[in-house]
């Protein structure tokens, strides 16, 4: 069964989404991440979507859910690398992902997580 790989880097978990995800795969990722946050006692999750040229409401909600669940488990989440076309489309769709911190790229995202600049 295909899964999206989750990388552990110190206390951070890094997820790079590179495939055109179907809904089941997205649900699996959500479950896997939640499990790993607990298992690895992660303090931060970085989701890299720079390779995604499409984010629809399902994926959007998945990202919201991941951030919410991570928060409950005392971990911060940063979403990085959103492409301009995707950002414009998401906003038009009405999904602003307010509960998720964002950064331009992986480097900035990691800096944010390490500094722990979250309220």
């Amino acid at each position, binding site marked *: 069964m295909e899964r999206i790989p989750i990388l552990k880097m110190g206390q951070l978990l890094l997820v790079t989404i590179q495939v055109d995800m179907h809904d089941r795969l997205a649900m699996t990722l959500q479950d896997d991440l939640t499990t790993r946050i607990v298992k690895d006692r992660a303090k931060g999750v970085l989701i890299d979507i720079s390779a995604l040229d499409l984010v629809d409401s399902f994926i959007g909600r998945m990202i919201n859910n991941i951030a919410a669940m991570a928060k409950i488990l005392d971990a911060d989440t940063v*979403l*990085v690398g*959103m492409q*301009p076309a*995707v*950002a*414009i489309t*998401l*906003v*038009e769709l009405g999904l*602003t*992902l*307010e509960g998720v911190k*964002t*950064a*331009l*790229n992986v480097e*900035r*995202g990691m800096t944010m997580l390490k500094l722990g600049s979250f309220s």
Partner: protein
Amino acid sequence: MRNETSRLGDIIIEHQEKLLEGWLASLISRIGRRDAHAETELRQQASRFLSLVGTTLRNAGSADIDSSAWQEARQLLGDISANRVRQGYSSIETANFVFSLKEPLTSYLQTEMSGDPATLVTEIMATNSLFDKLGLFTVESYQKSREQVIMRQQQELLELSTPVVQLWKDVLALPLIGTLDSARTQVVMESLLQKIVDTGASIAIIDITGVPTVDTLVAQHLLKTVAAARLMGADCIISGIRPQIAQTIVHLGVNLEDVITKATLADAFLVALQRAGSVIVQKDR
């Protein structure tokens, strides 16, 4: 079963050379622009069109120019019209390309069927009808091409009027002048986001000093832009809020809680610098 259009098609194909010469003479005299390049192009277009009409008439079995048999001919006329639009010809000049073929053609029909007036009349009427339709189609294509050119120009104008300026390493400024409608917002978002990617800026100052009115729609467009920039990791500061606009925003109940707002671009720039981690030091004179 005799093909109603095949005879005309035969005539065209048989006498193609002569017809072309007669037609071109009329075209060139009507156009009145003496320019070797234009003449060569005209020759090519006329030659292609004539042979295409000939073969289509012979094979088509109908003079219904909307049918799929006439697809290639329509395509050619569409291309020629678009070409004429680009070169600045009028719609009449463009339509005359087709209409001026009627005369040499009907002359030939008269010669071919001089002994059979009844058939001659039928054929001439059919020819007129066909070329009128083709001519009108050409005018329609011309108008559509014109509209497209105008729309493209409008788009380019929109893009030119929304420049995104890099004020500092991490700071962009977007001075908006004029109304912010939905089309403009699209262009603004695209420019801003692309600039964020290009410069890696994390702060964007949207200055609305030049925006005359802010109603619910404009406010929504602004908030959309702010939301889109945020998704890419950049925070927005809205500056240039005049007192009247502040009142309107409060009255409309627009929620600007998550957005930093400043009265002037200068104030916004200071805040931006601080957020970007810069400090301004006054040098002793």
